[in-house]
C-alpha cells in the first residue's frame, strides 16, 4: 500500500531521497570539527604574538598541516551544508534559491581550495 496522495503520484515530486546524506554529512563534519576547532583556536592564540618564522614552522609541520587541511575540508563542507538549509528555509523563489546555493557552494569551494593551497605551500616551504 502506498501512502502517497494521488496528486503526489501524478506530479512525481516526492523526496529526492538525498536528505539522509545531507543530515548525516552535517553530523560527521560536526563531530570532526569539535577537536579540530578547539585545537586550532588555541594553537593560533598561542602563536598570536610570535614572529613569522615561528608561525611558519608551527603551521607547516607535517601533523599540523595535515590537521589544518582536515579542518578546512570539514569546516567548508559543514558551512556549505548549513548555508544550504538557511537558503532553503528563507528563500521562497526557486530560481533565487538555486542561484544562492550554487553560488555559495562555488565560493566556499574556492575559499577551501585557496586555504589548502596556502597550507600545502607553507608545509612544503615553497
Amino acid at each position, binding site marked *: 500500500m502506498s501512502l502517497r496522495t494521488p496528486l503526489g503520484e501524478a506530479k512525481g515530486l516526492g523526496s529526492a531521497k538525498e536528505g539522509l546524506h545531507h543530515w548525516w554529512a552535517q*553530523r560527521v563534519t*560536526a*563531530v570532526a*570539527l*569539535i577537536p579540530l*576547532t*578547539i585545537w586550532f*583556536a*588555541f594553537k593560533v*592564540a*598561542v602563536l*598570536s*604574538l*610570535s*614572529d*613569522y618564522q*615561528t*608561525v*611558519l614552522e608551527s*603551521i607547516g609541520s607535517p601533523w599540523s598541516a595535515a590537521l*589544518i587541511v582536515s579542518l578546512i575540508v570539514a*569546516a*567548508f563542507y559543514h*558551512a556549505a551544508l*548549513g*548555508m544550504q538549509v*538557511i537558503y532553503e528555509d528563507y528563500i521562497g523563489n526557486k530560481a533565487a534559491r538555486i542561484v544562492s546555493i550554487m553560488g*555559495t557552494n562555488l565560493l*566556499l569551494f574556492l*575559499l577551501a581550495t*585557496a*586555504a589548502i*593551497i*596556502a*597550507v600545502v*605551500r*607553507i608545509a612544503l616551504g615553497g
Partner: protein
Amino acid sequence: MSSNNRPLSPHLDIYKLPLSALLSIVHRGTGAFLTFGSIVLVWWLMALAGGEEAFMSAQSFMGSFIGRLILFGWSFALFFHLANGIRHLFWDAGYGFEKDEVEKSSFIVLGTAGLLTLFVWVAAFSFGVGA
C-alpha cells in the same frame, strides 16, 4: 465572515522568546557569520604562505583594535556554535528534551562558550608576551 476578535497565535514580534528559542536562532546566525568569517582564516593562511611582509601586515591588522574586535566576535561565535552544536548532537541521539533539561543545557552552552572564549584570549596574551 472576518472578525478582528479572533485569537491569534503568538507572533515573533509580540512573543517573548524563551532562552532555548533565542539560542536556536543564534546558532543559525553564528553559523552564517562563521561561514562569512572563514574569509579571515583563508586570508591569514594566504598571508602566511605569501611571505614575511604579507604576514606581518596581516598580523598588525589583527593586533589592531578593529582586528581584535573582529577576532573576539569570531572566537565567541565559534565557541558558541561549538557548544550548542554539541548540545544538538545530544538531541540527535535522543537525550535532553525535557523542559528543565533544555533550560539547564542552555546555561551550560552559554557558560562553556564564555569560558572557552576567555581561555583562548588568556592563552593569546599570556603565551604571546614571552615571544
